[in-house]
């Protein structure tokens, strides 16, 4: 790309101005993460003055292969994937549908857009508190609604599968707004002319969507898929607030937090084990990386096919 803003010394200006951001990135984000990688090969407790020994792959071996605990960890990995699958597909589809509807000239559309985006503003803690309240089993709104049909439920305190399903619901509720906004942005870059041309060819609504909207929406589709996949794989705060550390509901992100903060329930005691916690977080990192890159690769190929 040709640079127009001068030569010689002033050619360095973009680099100079770029520097603070990059330095911050290396120091605050990348550096500590690399240190975590090193940590994962040690028995570091994280306490000052405690000896730190190189233990090779022992932490990974324990996390992935030692006894029933390892099988429970792998269950959590499986659950993380299930969580990702449901959250990504539903949030993606719902966000797209809502965006398409709200891209029409409807009365009150700004109200709806604002409303659906509102949970994003609240942050995970408040999202979680709001839903704990909404799902309050002793006479909360949903409990009352079920009562009409003579049904009852413990909701978040009930069997793990049901509790887990509720977290999926809340996660989608909380983040659908972002998906919607990104789709809306994409929809607005599609020129009216394409729609008119399709109409003149006698296309119906579905055909217009299938042949005009969908292919031209590719950039937003890619952004959303990637964000949804990464976001759902790393999610843990809602699990903490809605469920706490409960058997049969943990996902990997929460597991790491719990190990790091000494809050696992397999044992009644807690220990400082930062090396082990680091190994668990590297496992999550690799998983997110592989899935994320696979999604990227798949999307690139699709984009090339569509765009020629």
């Amino acid at each position, binding site marked *: 790309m040709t640079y127009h803003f001068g030569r010689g010394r002033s050619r360095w200006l973009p680099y100079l101005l770029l520097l603070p951001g990059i330095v911050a990135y290396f120091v605050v984000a990348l550096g500590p993460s690399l240190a975590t990688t090193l940590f994962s090969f040690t028995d570091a407790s994280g306490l000052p003055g405690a000896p730190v020994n190189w233990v090779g792959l022992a932490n990974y071996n324990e996390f992935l292969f030692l006894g029933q605990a390892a099988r429970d960890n792998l269950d959590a990995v499986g659950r993380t994937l299930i969580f990702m699958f449901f959250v990504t597909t539903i949030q993606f589809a719902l966000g797209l549908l809502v965006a398409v509807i709200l891209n029409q000239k409807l009365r009150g559309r700004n109200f709806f857009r604002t409303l659906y985006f509102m949970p994003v503003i609240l*942050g995970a803690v408040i999202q979680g508190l709001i839903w704990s309240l909404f799902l309050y089993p002793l006479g909360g709104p949903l409990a009352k609604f079920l009562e009409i049909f003579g049904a009852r439920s413990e909701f978040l305190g009930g069997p793990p599968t049901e509790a887990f399903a509720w977290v999926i619901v809340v996660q989608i509720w909380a983040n659908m707004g972002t998906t919607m906004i990104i789709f809306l942005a994409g929809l607005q870059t599609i020129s*009216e002319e394409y*729609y008119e041309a399709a109409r003149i060819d006698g296309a119906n609504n579905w055909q217009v969507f299938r042949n005009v909207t969908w292919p031209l929406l590719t950039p937003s589709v890619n952004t959303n898929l990637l964000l949804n996949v990464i976001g759902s794989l790393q999610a843990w705060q809602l699990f903490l607030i809605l469920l706490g550390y409960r058997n049969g509901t943990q996902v990997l992100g929460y597991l790491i937090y719990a190990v790091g903060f000494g809050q696992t329930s397999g044992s009644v005691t807690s220990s400082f084990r930062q090396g082990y916690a680091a190994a668990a977080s590297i496992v999550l990192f690799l998983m997110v990386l592989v899935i994320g890159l696979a999604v990227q690769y798949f999307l690139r190929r699709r984009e090339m096919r569509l765009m020629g």
Partner: protein
Amino acid sequence: MSATSTSYTPMNRQVPWSKIASYAFLLLLAVVYLGPILMLVNTSLKTTPSFMRDATSVASELNFENFAEAWEKANFPRYLLNSAIYTVSATAIYVVTAVFVAFPISRGYVKYSGLVLTLYVIALFLPPALIPQFQLILRLGLYNNPIGYILLFIVNPIGIVILVNYIKTVPKELDEAAALDGCGYFRFVWSVVLPLVRPALATVVVLHAIGIWNEIILPTIYLTNKDYYPITRGLIVFQGVYGSDWPVLAAAVLMLTFPMVILFLFLQRYIVSGLTAGSVKG
């Protein structure tokens, strides 16, 4: 209502079924979105015994004392100020540095732009690094120091990715024209690019600010002096006896949310209007 329909709604036949279906769907979804929030508001206006008796009934008593109590207990005025300081400074530093990272990468004005972007994309996946990060801040002598705390929030890869993509919609011809007019690089980015990417900027600002404002764990670890607590740290008094006191907790949470909602409403014309590319479609 059908008078407002445009080319993208179905042809105007007798009954606008598609429009009716749209509204039905939007309203149904609105119930799911409003319901929990209304429950929070309703709870915040109830007395505790009334909540214990019937959690869902309408708060006819309009008990505003919950707000006063929460305000008092959580030391709101002082901690709100701290939260504002952290959120505003970190967001400002972040947004300014981010623009100067995103613009040259997006344009390819620096070598290895692709590589730098890849680094930021990888950053999306990076594992949490609680202890190493703590050691870093400690060694820098910035532990229990507002500056050190702010430092934790000056990196956010998602914002960079959003900005890089958005800047691509700003026509490259503008650069050349501006340069011909004698406009320097800094001034160009600051006074030409910045206003043009306002919608993306607004989104990045809101997303980043929300993260800082609502952070609960980092203040517990990095700020041990009470004078530095942000409001989320002050909310700890509601754990314990007050954790179960839903009405007061609900009031506190509403007050905590209020400034972010204001910020959002202020920026929402950029955000919910869909980050529109507007006149600078790429």
